[in-house]
């Protein structure tokens, strides 16, 4: 067996470089074989889905996606939304188109209504109820009872 200790530093480096190049080449050739082999893997059971139609996505003016729908259902959806004043589109809206829509009076009115609805609904939660209760008691009795109410809640 060759005595590697007798080789110079440069010779050792060259040897190692050659080996790594060959190793990389061998590995890439192996990968190519593996890639070709995967095309005909006997262990795979392919499943294919087919249909006589393609389902369609529709988009609102704010780019909300609707569907996917059968083409006939897509047509019915367009009519249904149009009845309530909303146009549906087949292609997604661009940022510029969305900004343009947000400037319309219809959007401003609907957005304000929706914002008020969300505010009302959130206020119906029990969040902050104990604090409100403490304030009411304070007002009625003229005494600061906030701490007492908090401790009652913990019990």
């Amino acid at each position, binding site marked *: 067996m060759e005595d590697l200790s007798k080789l110079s530093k440069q010779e050792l480096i060259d040897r190692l470089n050659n080996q790594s190049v060959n190793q990389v080449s061998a590995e890439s050739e192996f990968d190519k074989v593996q890639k070709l082999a995967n095309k005909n893997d*006997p*262990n*795979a*059971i*392919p*499943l*294919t*889905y*087919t*249909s*006589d*139609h393609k*389902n369609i996505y*529709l988009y609102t003016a*704010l780019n*909300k*996606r*609707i*569907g*996917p*729908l*059968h*083409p*006939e*259902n897509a047509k*019915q*959806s367009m*009519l*249904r*939304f149009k*009845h*309530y004043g909303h146009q549906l589109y087949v292609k997604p809206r661009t940022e510029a188109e969305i900004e343009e829509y947000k400037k319309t009076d219809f959007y401003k009115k609907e957005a304000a209504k*929706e914002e008020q609805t*969300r505010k*009302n*609904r*959130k206020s*119906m*939660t*029990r*969040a*902050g*109820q*104990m604090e409100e209760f403490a304030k009411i008691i304070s007002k009625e009795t003229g005494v600061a009872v906030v701490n007492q109410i908090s401790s009652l*809640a913990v019990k």
Partner: protein
Amino acid sequence: MALETTPTTMTEAIPTIVEAMLLELDDQSIIRPLVRNVDFSGPGVLHHTPFVTRLAAETDDNLSNQALDSGGSDYTSPSAATVGAHGATVLLKTLARMGTVGDLAAAAGQLIGQCLVVQQEKDLAGLFSSFTPIQGGANNDIVAADLYAAYKKIRQGWGSFPYNLVITPGQFWGTKGIITLLQLDATNGIQSHGVGTVGEDIARNGWTGRILGFDVYTTTNITTTSNNASGLAFSKEAIKFVNKRDVQIETDRIIVGEVGDQITGTGYWGEAILRGSQGVEMQFNEDT
């Protein structure tokens, strides 16, 4: 040899395939049993449901006016479902069959059943976002009042009980989901805890089947976009699923390109919104 695959052998395997397929169709069907199922085995590919205008009480109490008035229809168009063809094909390679200890015919039936049932569920779930009554929106977290509003809307639409709520798992168990409404703290809409309450149900089981008048179901077949999804609160008559023909299995021998048996399950169905006022889209966030 026992493992030779011949057309006769594949024919004998058909009952196994069908049995495995039917099990998947039954087990994984969540939305379909909740909607109106219509048998459309006769002629035609377009199933129509016409609507009869409902009479309403006359608003003018003048004695010379009629007692009842014909109101307008709640619906903009008759409900029409177009039947489509759906097929799921499995290529059962002869080599795979010979090399397997288990029953690949049952596996093929399972795959076909899964494929078709998921497609049925996706077709139905795709209708959820096309309902015009809606609660929530793109960046909204659900609160209890949204469920009250959905219930009110379905009642106003004369929806018959039971009312169902089909949502994604994230909309139920997510950090912004329904389960957060029943936590034992002061930040949520319903504080339902104690013996026999919904909160106790969730604390014990991690799940409740009924909340605020809705039977709750979760499905992964609703599309989620940016942690936001559209479920549906509805009565049975909101959607119709029209079945032209139940799923059937057909086999074919393939010896060109691949060697094996091609097993195809075919179904013919359509779906459409039946009564738009009896369904409410529930579009809410899943997680932050």
